[in-house]
């Protein structure tokens, strides 16, 4: 049964303290798990609506936990990690995490990310296959892209790329995931394809390519489609 609480998996006392305090202040219902064992216990009792996970746990690897959770659950996972550990973030996202935050982070930023994840979950549950944000409308089921009400022409690769991002707006897709999905698994190292096509896609749908509103870059990680 999906409950209304947010599961915070964090072993550091201080960080856990301010996370619980901040989430409570923002009218969420946080529940703290300091170890892998406590996390499994919480999951067995009730399914959370979202999980905030620090990858470094005293009794196990956070990435293994993501893999284990994804076998059973669909709730969003936001990963907390140190800024330098980019490879860790990529692995976590590839395993099924939805978003990440680098330490140290701003509480407002965390709350915003939580809201994005929860909104996306609600939309998915409504089987809403239409993405609309500002002037951009993407109808995934009809394969239609409109900007300011006008249909825009995209190349097959650009169309495929945009449709794939629109399947889960707000979720970060790693470069590897995108290259594998759009070009095929043998192209996962050809990042210049992704850079070039993303640049062309931005030129068609963004007002200012260098300051994108829709196609957001997660440096060193991948891309996401903006969500209000």
């Amino acid at each position, binding site marked *: 049964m999906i409950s209304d609480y947010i599961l915070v998996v964090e072993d550091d006392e201080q960080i856990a303290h301010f996370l619980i305090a901040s989430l409570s202040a923002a009218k969420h219902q946080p529940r703290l798990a300091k170890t892998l064992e406590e996390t499994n216990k919480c999951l067995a009792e009730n399914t959370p609506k979202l999980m905030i996970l620090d990858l470094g746990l005293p009794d196990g690897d956070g990435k293994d936990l993501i893999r284990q959770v994804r076998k059973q659950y669909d709730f969003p996972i936001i990963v907390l990690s140190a*800024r*330098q550990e*980019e490879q860790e973030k990529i692995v976590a996202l590839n395993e099924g995490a939805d978003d990440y935050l680098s330490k*140290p982070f701003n509480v407002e930023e965390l709350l915003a990310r939580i809201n994005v994840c929860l909104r996306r979950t609600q939309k998915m549950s409504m089987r809403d296959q239409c993405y609309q944000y500002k002037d951009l409308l993407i109808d995934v089921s009809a394969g239609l892209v409109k900007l300011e009400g006008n249909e825009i022409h995209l190349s097959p690769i650009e169309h495929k790329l945009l449709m794939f991002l629109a399947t889960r707006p707000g979720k970060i897709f790693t470069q590897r995931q995108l290259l594998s999905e759009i070009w095929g698994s043998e192209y996962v190292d050809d*990042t*210049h394809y992704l*850079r*070039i096509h*993303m*640049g062309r896609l931005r030129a068609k749908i963004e007002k200012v*390519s*260098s*300051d*994108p509103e829709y196609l957001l*870059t997660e*440096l*060193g990680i991948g891309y996401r489609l903006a969500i209000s």
Partner: protein
Amino acid sequence: MYINHMTHRKSSKSPILLEAMSIFLGMIAITALSHVVDEYLGLAGVSFLYLILVIWVSYKSQLVASIFVAIGSFLLINFFYVEPRYTFVIGSIESWSALLGFLLVSIAITSLVHQLRRQKDIAEKETFKANLLRSIIEIFSVEADSVVSLKKSCLLLKSELGCDVAILKLDSTTKESIELASSKSGGVKLDSWYISHAIEYGAMLGPHTGTLESLDYWCIPFGRYYKSHELPALVIERAHEENIEVSLIRAIVDQLSVHYQKRMAEIKAKDAGELAHRESIQNTFLSSISHDMRTPLTTIIGASSSLLKQSDQLGAAESKKLLELIHSESVYLNDSTENILSLVKLGMSDSNQIRMDWQSPEEIIGAVISRYNNREVKPSLALVMEAKDELIHGDQALIVLALTNLIENAVKAHLGSKPIQILVDRVDDEIRIGVMDEGAGFPKDFDKGLAGQQQSYQRNKKGFGLGLSIVRAVMDKHKGRLIVESSLGSDKKTYVGMAFPYKASS
């Protein structure tokens, strides 16, 4: 391969018997011919035919054979064509002078031909040697890695000399031999005692060297005069089987040694330079942080202790102001700590740890600019993309770090009303990302080559002044360069940029 090593091998000489037979047959043929032409040409013509035979044998054979033919020819002429005929009695003084003439011709031609052959042989050996040494030079000038150069040299020597070779050195602690390169997959095995002996005494070992001549290897140390255990030795197998001159081997080893030592000296100089660079970076930020880190920490400790101890006396507005102060100083400290950690990491990491990939300059700049969107006071930035479709091959995190520092420095120094420009352009074989502001520039004597090496330079009052050190270190990792141009145009603009080597994305 242009080296003709066959000239240097043992020449396949005709068996003596075959040579004697051909001389014998030649004499019979000339005698038979002389009988035919005797009545037309007379004694002079016959003597001329025998003289040709003497000249031919002198040219083709050794001195003994040519003297034998000269005497034989004289006796045959005397027997068949000089009165009294059919007897070996020499009847006149002219006959003796003819014998002397034949002998002189045979000796003179044989010695001349012998001398010419020797000179030709020497010339061929010298050409072979020169080509071999030139090939070694070419290997070292084309190949950057010294071990790969030695390996290729071993393979070259194997193909040219026909025997397996290896370059071995001694382990400084165990004194066991370590193979640096070899032409043989299993390696060339020679007891490390011999290598140690050769290196210690700077002496060649093996056949015709004067030392351990019974050894079936040549072992030649790279160091001829110094007893340096850092230098290896060349080992050649089957020394007794191959007809290789010791002087050639010595010349090969000298050539290898010169290039190997030069390469080692370059590596040492580079290591020393990098060490000095790392030390200077450490000195720079250690001296900077000693003062600059204490300032925000003092503010944080002071403001937080006021909130803890004097919360009752402080009004709500004052408390909020102190909290904002703690927050802003914490953010500043966090950014500064990131910079310091990055610089330390850059100083410690080698090129292999850099994650090179294709990067879009527009995307990177966009991501850096977006960080300013949440700030209360947003700097005015304008992007000028001259090279829109070009990609950079580099480490995204490092480029972002360097660009962030360039923008931060420009924001702090900028005094003009126009936006700070971020420029991306391609100039010749470089993709440049630079930031142009209208603030205090750099002094005329500012040496950008020393930025981050000897001192940091602060164009603004606040900060650690590590920005250029970071940019320079990042550019070093990308084999690019830092560009600093002050007092540009009538607006006195300052341009600080990163030039990345252009690489086409396939």
